[in-house]
């Protein structure tokens, strides 16, 4: 277990900056997720922490000791790869034993540790098989086992669940969380799947173009995203974004519908620029019989069991509403909708930074 610190870490590839002046503190025993789209630098960051690539600039510290120039072995890190990267010519037992064998651990100890790990991951029955005789989920467990067996100081996972089918992914996700709570090793997890990030992490570092845009708990990332990019990355279905113009004490929606700001929320309006993007999560929109903000047509209804998604077409925008399942709403009907004033998010039109209502923050 170790506390991991990145200090101004940069990685250049030819002309592009894959990771750009990154500073990040990961606490001992923390489950931190690097979340971002493809090419955002999250995997490169993981490789830098692992020591698989040297940074172009900056320092990496484990427990306040500079490890920038150390090899992965010397750092004592373990990595689980998206492709699992099991050794195809070795049996499961040999795969598990390999890190120990390379570390010159005594054979008797190796045997004991292999069985201990196999028991923990419930793969004892598979020890004599070759990786290609295993299912995806089983290969995944072996890869986890091979990473855990050395009792690494830092445990690094690079999209470990993305090659599995949906059901198995959810099951292994829970196991992974339990596993982390058992071993309590500092864990850095890379994913592009916001749901995985939300479910698993103590903290999420959202990355974009080689930089960390926001690093906070899943709750904060969801309710108080630092920018439009972050807001759009988390949440399913994605957040609704509207172009808003302010005219005195009213908001003008795309298409010209005017919404009077209630007295209780006037203060909220004051610091906002005349044009901005408004973000509303689907669960903060609701349909109402009377006194809605505007009317819209139901384009589509998606039933999910307990909940439903309703996609609304208005003049120049679409909205997704999430509410409890209700058979009465039909495709094609016209409904009136409203939003929850307390949960509106405002973003700068040009930079996407969040404009905190009621304060003067912003660009």
């Amino acid at each position, binding site marked *: 277990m170790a506390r991991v610190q990145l200090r101004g870490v940069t990685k250049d590839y030819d002309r592009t900056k894959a990771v750009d002046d990154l500073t990040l503190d990961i606490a001992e025993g923390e489950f931190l997720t690097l979340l971002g789209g493809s090419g955002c630098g999250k995997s490169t960051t993981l*490789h830098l922490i*692992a020591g*698989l690539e040297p940074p172009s600039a900056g320092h990496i510290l484990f427990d306040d000791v500079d490890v920038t120039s150390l*090899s*992965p*072995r010397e750092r004592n*890190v*373990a*990595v689980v*790869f*998206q*492709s*699992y*990267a*099991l*050794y*195809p*010519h*070795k049996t499961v037992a040999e795969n598990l034993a*390999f*890190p120990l064998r*390379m*570390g010159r651990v005594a054979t008797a100890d190796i045997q004991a540790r292999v069985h201990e790990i196999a028991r923990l991951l419930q793969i004892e029955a598979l020890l004599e098989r070759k990786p290609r005789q295993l299912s995806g989920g089983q290969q995944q467990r072996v890869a986890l086992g*091979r990473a855990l067996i050395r009792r690494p100081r830092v445990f690094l996972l690079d999209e470990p669940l993305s090659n599995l089918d949906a059901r198995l992914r959810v099951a292994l996700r829970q196991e992974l969380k339990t596993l982390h709570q058992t071993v309590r090793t500092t864990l850095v997890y890379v994913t592009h799947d916001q749901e995985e990030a939300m479910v698993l992490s103590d903290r999420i570092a959202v990355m974009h173009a080689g930089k960390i845009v926001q690093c906070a708990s899943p709750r904060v990332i969801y309710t108080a995203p630092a920018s439009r990019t972050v807001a759009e990355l988390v949440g399913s279905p994605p957040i609704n974004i509207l172009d808003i113009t302010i005219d005195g004490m009213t908001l003008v929606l795309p298409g010209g519908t005017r919404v009077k700001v209630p007295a209780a929320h006037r203060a909220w309006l004051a610091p906002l620029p005349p044009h901005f993007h408004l973000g509303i999560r689907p669960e903060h929109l609701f349909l109402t019989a009377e006194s809605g903000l505007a009317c819209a047509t139901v384009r589509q209804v998606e039933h999910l069991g307990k909940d439903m998604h309703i996609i609304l077409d208005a003049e120049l925008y679409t909205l997704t509403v999430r509410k409890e399942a209700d058979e009465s709403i039909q495709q094609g009907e016209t409904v009136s909708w409203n939003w929850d004033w307390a949960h509106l998010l405002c973003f700068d039109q040009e930079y996407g930074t969040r404009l905190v209502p009621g304060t003067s923050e912003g660009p």
Partner: protein
Amino acid sequence: MERQVNPQWSQWIGYSIRMLLFVTGLGLVLSFCLLPVLWQLVTALKPTAELVTLPPLLPTVPTLDHFRSVFMDRPFARILFNSTGVALLTTLVCLVLGTPAAFALAKLRVPGQRLILLSILAVSMFPPIAIVGSLFLLIRLLHLRDTWWALILADATFALPLTIWVMTSFLRDIPDDLLRAARVDGCTTLQALLYVFLPVVAPGLTTAVLLTFVFTWNEFLFALTFTATDAARTVPVEIALFPGLHEVPWGEMAAAAMLVTVPLLILMLVAQRHIVAGLTAGAVKG
């Protein structure tokens, strides 16, 4: 009355014609490849008197005289030893030098990777006859004439690029994550090559070994140029030197040819599953 053609019947005819064409084609190709070999075998077994007469097509009394005389009247055992030694050592040298080179070119970050690979290919493209003169001077300078090392060095000029190319294409198909995993698990680059990549790429390795061995085994020009005595002379050259001033010993030449073909055939048969696996593994991304 109109004649009715049973559709099943016509289908069957179509099938038979296709089959017939296929078998004929196969037969033609096989005869083209195998008849010369059979002819050699027949010649090797014919008594001298029947060698230049036809009929009989097959030897009336098969004889092993030619094989006996190849070994008794000539230093053929020594020559076979030379051929085996040179081919084995060349293969070994190429593997030891070529595999790490291929590994670096395929998996490590080497500046000018493409350029290096292309120049390696370019080297193997020079026709041997174009370099044999300067190689001769070089080998004389190094006092290596008439030694195995002259041949090993010369053969490496085409065998090493071959090995590097074959191994590079095989190693390239192995995912990068496997190298990363090996390094995280504590391997140095060399250990990653030895413990992880070589076992994984074994089919490719077999292919490279066999190709190198066969090419070297059959090599003629360098072996002819750089040897003067039976100290290092190889089988193809020796067989070419069989004909005397007044007679061509067809029987002995055929017998010797059989003797050098059979080991290769056995080698190929033993390794053929690996080769096929290797060739397809290299060609198809898996």
